[in-house]
């Protein structure tokens, strides 16, 4: 079902979602994205550069977060702009549980050109991992 512009107003909540991230997910993302930086899969190297453990790719976190918006809109091609600042790393332990990324969002603006801005929050263990994640998208008008 594709969301229409008439369905949203300022303050409309985007359905929140929790993503579980395991080491296996990071290996798969490394392969698909071509980002083989060792800190995303090698604990020894992560420790050597002063990290508590292996961390998720910032771009993987960014890729997961925007899905609450594209799922809500019902169209993965609806996004015009998407920006984030990486504020904290998502630490992914080597166990079955991994890390849990929690994403929520709400409509912050409806622009004159009919585009909609959604402001997200992204937290892991209660700590913000992306600063000011914002998505601007175009919803179908009819």
């Amino acid at each position: 079902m594709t969301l229409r512009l008439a369905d949203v107003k300022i303050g409309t909540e985007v359905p929140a979602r929790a993503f579980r991230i395991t080491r296996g997910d990071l290996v798969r993302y490394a392969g698909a994205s071509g980002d083989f930086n060792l800190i995303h899969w090698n604990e020894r190297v992560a420790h050597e550069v002063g990290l508590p453990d292996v961390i998720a790719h910032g771009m993987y976190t960014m890729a997961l977060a925007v899905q609450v918006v594209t799922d809500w809109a019902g169209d993965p091609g609806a996004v015009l702009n998407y920006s984030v600042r990486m504020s904290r790393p998502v630490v992914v332990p080597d166990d079955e549980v991994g890390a849990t990324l929690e994403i929520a969002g709400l409509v912050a603006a409806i622009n004159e050109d009919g585009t909609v801005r959604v402001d997200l929050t992204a937290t892991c263990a209660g700590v913000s991992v992306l600063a000011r994640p914002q998505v601007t998208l175009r919803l179908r008008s009819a």
Partner: protein
Amino acid sequence: MSSVNPELVGREWPLPTTYLVGREKVREFAAAIGERSPACHDPAAARGFGYPDVVAPVTFPVVITGPELDRLLADPAINVPLHRVLHGEQRFEYSRPIVAGDELSVVSRLTAVRSMAGNDFLTIAAEMSDAEGAHVVTATAVIVLRPEVGE
């Protein structure tokens, strides 16, 4: 004093060949991020959404910009060791979604060099356009260079 010469701002690193967006690469990337929309996997479903072929997820341009960034940082003019690099910010600005079959020309441009609190910040904007020369997306990264120990 920045370890990267600010006079390099404006320099361009064009991708030597075009990047042909493959349907299976789009599917592979979508699967890796858990994106299950049929528009990213099934060409018939994508056509139902009004797209000519499967749609690449929003952050798909990193498949292209990741290796390009490594190439730029290794350029003798920049010469930044990768262990000093942190990804600070990322932005995507689309004119239209990327779809399988797109043949993208890519130009990466160093657009800013700043120094703040002992860290250097490089802004690199990768502009992607299609075979007709129309803008598709600009992917902009802010890269943080941490100081070398003892610097």
